[in-house]
């Protein structure tokens, strides 16, 4: 729904529209991630709701100009509430033929296509394995195509600076960004500010990028390249102060905050791995909060060093992705046996084995629940959105410290790199996390438990009179002495299970979104939240009687999940795996949960979900 208003100042139309999806696509070297995040930041600052989807090539560098080298950044921004980066694209910026080839399928009919026409020479086409020039073979006829000589125009706007050609060409993404700002009537100031701070030490480059940006803007102004420009009013987000945040940033910040609220030092033991490495990078910056980041020699040293830090009184954590998670499983058993607090973050990626390192997936749930020798229960949480990574991180730390258990957080590549506007909580919105170390030798026993939480005391080295020994062998309750007696073992196994089950007492009952009962319940977890929310909204607008239950606590489950499941005729569980949550629901509640399983390294599209919903409703 778009209302047209005449803009007297120019004979250009300006349309006010509700929402738009824009995608920047180019070579890995073209700076598309920066361009996209700058545009995102600007529209977010302006007050639009946003959802982003950065999609860059596998870790290894591909040759320039080839398809595997294409890097993309998609943004959905709106004056209404949105939860996904959008299925199809309104505006596509393609910096070279490969980018065009890889992305054009997602551009809507009659969508705007801006291409860098300087990069469609014979050689460029060959790199993209194209025999004919798409700009000439009518394959783009169904789009509104705007070929722009980005290279030539950028250079000419910069030639007076005396930079070499390579340096000038590196600015052409800002030229394109300038065009987009014009197209959506956005101020260039935030980006100008960013350029100034980013290139503080290199004023000449700062100047060049700013010039290119403005050149792109004025190019549209002058040439009236586009007959139309768009206006997307601010969204009605709930009041508050907002910032734009990615999942990995949010997770790192959440743990710093948790440590502060608990009055503990934060220790991270980690070994780099995509897409989790940025959490390590983020936390290594927080020295002013006393954060200790230990880059270990491998994932096993990463988690075991964290266990050591936890034993000596830190809020300890370890971060990794699938393959690294597999390596940590033996050590998780030690944390379970010694009943030490620990936050284990798995930013899931495509697998198995090395798999698809930069693609997203939700297939580590069963590993998180069962991937250890013997009976080794662990609480498992999963954030729903990039911003929710902050809250889940705080919750994970709270549970770990209150119950003296390791806790697993399952994020994924989509949340880790995706961004959304995040309402900054006021300090008093942050939960308090009370922690006390044992200090009194009187009657101290290393496995004497708190009756309510079953937590054992946390007696840290350096405390006089509490000297004691712990380890991975089975032990007697209360005294903690090694013990292999049959009944003691059964008792301890059941206590460890009861302790994890006890976490449920803090988990509020879950309310399904949409209808409280009806024909179909959709159950989800993790990063599929957004797409499903969108799909359910649209289906309910069509009058379907459906509910949506999203789970952030996967072990233990909220107490009322069983009841909710029974209030609907059918249960659908869409997952980016082969059906792991549905397995759990089936086993626990004997409900015939049906899976919608996509395992392509990409998030759900809204309409894939809607089609399945309608199929299950027999429509």
């Amino acid at each position, binding site marked *: 729904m778009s209302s047209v208003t005449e803009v007297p100042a120019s004979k250009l139309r300006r349309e006010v529209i509700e929402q738009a999806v824009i995608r920047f696509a180019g070579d890995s070297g073209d700076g598309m991630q920066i361009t996209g995040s700058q545009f995102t930041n600007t529209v977010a600052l302006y007050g639009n709701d946003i959802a982003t989807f950065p999609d860059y090539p596998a870790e290894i560098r591909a040759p320039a100009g080839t398809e595997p080298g294409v890097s993309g950044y998609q943004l959905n921004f709106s004056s209404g509430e949105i939860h996904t980066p959008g299925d199809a694209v309104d505006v596509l910026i393609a910096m070279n033929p490969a980018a065009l080839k890889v992305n054009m399928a997602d551009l809507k009919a009659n969508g705007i296509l801006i291409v860098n026409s300087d990069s469609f020479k014979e050689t460029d086409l060959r790199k993209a394995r194209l025999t004919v020039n798409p700009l000439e073979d009518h394959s783009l006829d169904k789009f509104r195509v705007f070929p722009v000589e980005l290279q030539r125009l950028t250079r000419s706007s910069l030639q007076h600076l005396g930079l070499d050609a390579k340096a000038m060409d590196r600015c052409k993404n800002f030229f394109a960004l300038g065009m987009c700002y014009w197209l959506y009537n956005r101020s260039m100031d935030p980006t100008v500010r960013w350029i100034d701070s980013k290139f503080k030490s290199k004023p000449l480059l700062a100047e060049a990028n700013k010039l290119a940006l403005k050149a792109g803007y004025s190019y549209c102004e002058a040439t009236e390249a586009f007959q139309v420009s768009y206006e997307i009013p601010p969204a009605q987000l709930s009041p508050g102060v907002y910032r734009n945040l990615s999942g990995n940033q949010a997770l790192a910040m959440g743990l710093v905050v948790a440590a502060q609220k608990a009055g503990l030092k934060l220790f991270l033991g980690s070994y780099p791995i995509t897409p989790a490495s940025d959490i390590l990078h983020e936390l290594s910056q927080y020295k002013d909060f006393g954060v*200790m980041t230990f880059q270990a020699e491998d994932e096993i040293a990463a988690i075991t060093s964290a266990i*050591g830090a936890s034993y000596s009184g830190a809020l300890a954590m370890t971060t990794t992705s699938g393959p690294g998670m597999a390596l940590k499983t033996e050590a998780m058993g030690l944390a379970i046996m010694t009943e030490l607090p620990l936050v284990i973050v798995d930013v899931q990626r495509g697998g198995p084995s090395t798999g698809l390192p930069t693609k997203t997936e939700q297939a580590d749930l069963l590993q998180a629940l069962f991937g250890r020798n013997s009976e080794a229960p662990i609480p498992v949480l999963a954030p729903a959105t990039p911003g929710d990574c902050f809250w889940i991180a705080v919750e994970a730390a709270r549970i770990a410290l209150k119950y003296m258990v390791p806790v697993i957080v399952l994020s994924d590549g989509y949340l880790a790199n995706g961004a959304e506007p995040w309402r900054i909580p006021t300090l008093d919105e942050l939960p308090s996390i009370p922690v006390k170390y044992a200090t009194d030798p009187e009657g101290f026993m290393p496995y004497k438990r708190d009756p309510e939480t079953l937590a054992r005391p946390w007696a840290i080295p350096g405390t006089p009179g509490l000297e004691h020994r712990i380890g991975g062998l089975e032990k007697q309750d209360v005294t903690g002495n090694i013990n292999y007696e049959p009944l003691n073992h059964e008792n301890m196994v059941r206590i460890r299970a009861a302790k994890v089950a006890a976490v449920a007492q803090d988990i509020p009952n879950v309310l399904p979104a949409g209808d409280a009962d009806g024909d179909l319940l959709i159950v989800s977890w993790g990063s599929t939240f957004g797409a499903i929310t969108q799909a359910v909204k649209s289906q309910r607008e069509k009058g379907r009687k459906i509910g949506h239950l999203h789970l952030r606590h996967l072990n233990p489950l909220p107490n009322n999940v069983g009841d909710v499941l029974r209030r609907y005729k059918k249960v659908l569980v869409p997952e980016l795996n082969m059906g792991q949550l549905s397995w759990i629901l089936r086993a626990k509640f004997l409900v015939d949960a049906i899976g919608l399983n996509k395992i392509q390294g990409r998030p759900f599209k809204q309409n894939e979900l809607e089609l399945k919903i309608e199929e299950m409703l027999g429509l």
Partner: protein
Amino acid sequence: MTTAALPPLTKKDFQTDQEVRWCPGCGDYAILAAVQAVFPELGIKRENFVVVSGIGCSSRFPYYMNTYGFHTIHGRAPAVATGIKVNHPELEVWVATGDGDALAIGGNHTIHMLRRNVGIKVLLFNNKIYGLTKGQYSPTSEFQKVTKSTPFGSPDRPFNPVSLAIGAEATFVARSVDVFQGHLKETLKAAAAHKGSAFVEILQNCNIFNDGAWFNLTEKEARSEHVIQLEHGKPLIFGKNKDKGIRRKPDGDIEVVALGNGISESDLIVHDAHHPRPSYAFLLSHMEHRPGFPTPLGVFRAWDDLPRYEDVMHEQIQAVIAKKGPGDLSKLLRAGDTWEVK
């Protein structure tokens, strides 16, 4: 952690009520006795000791020390200990480990801990066998060794733990023997005095699965002929009658010489444990592999001028805090561009 006014601790203070579960005659008893004798003399509060181990007979050690103790999982003690020490540098962290625990499954953590120079003391109980699992060969077992898992002899040649540690940039490397109580205690004290990582190989007898592994070094008769004591500033002399020594050859290599007829102590190498470079210690570490050469015991290398990992990390933190001030939560939350929705 040394403080003047401590109530004097005694050996008893470091004994636990746990019944010690090693085979009668095991060399581990002697090592336990030595450690329990040395700890009270270090002027460190008992609550500041942490003894960390992996899995193995030797790794039962923490249960018998009345300090904080962590019996972790196989091979990971150096990594767990690193987490403890980095988080809590005031603690006195010792690792008890075996030749399998530290050099087979735990080899990587051991060399990385040494490379980083984390202020941890490692006691490697080297019995050249997997004791706890009942007698398979280990990375220190001699070539062609017949064991449960190698009935026709082991096909590979062992590590020399001292050489490996030096190759991994260790700043303190020493060797002692379970039954040489006096020597062992002195060696442990030297390790305790070292700020950086200290690696002590302790030759230990497993009388059940590898009895007499070190016989030629411990047995009264042979001993003095097969062992050479490394003492800083003293010439390299050995032999029952102190009649042999180690001398430099012009080509930089070393040779065993008999003292007398023209050759005197002054011709021998004077041991320099504080040499800043590792090559001299490495040369010593390999001597016993040559025919006619003795096995060195004592401190090969004790060079303490390198900053400890944990100190560098905490200095960085202090420096940043000094510069930016201590972290402020609301600033943290509001970092970067923000906007307000009314």
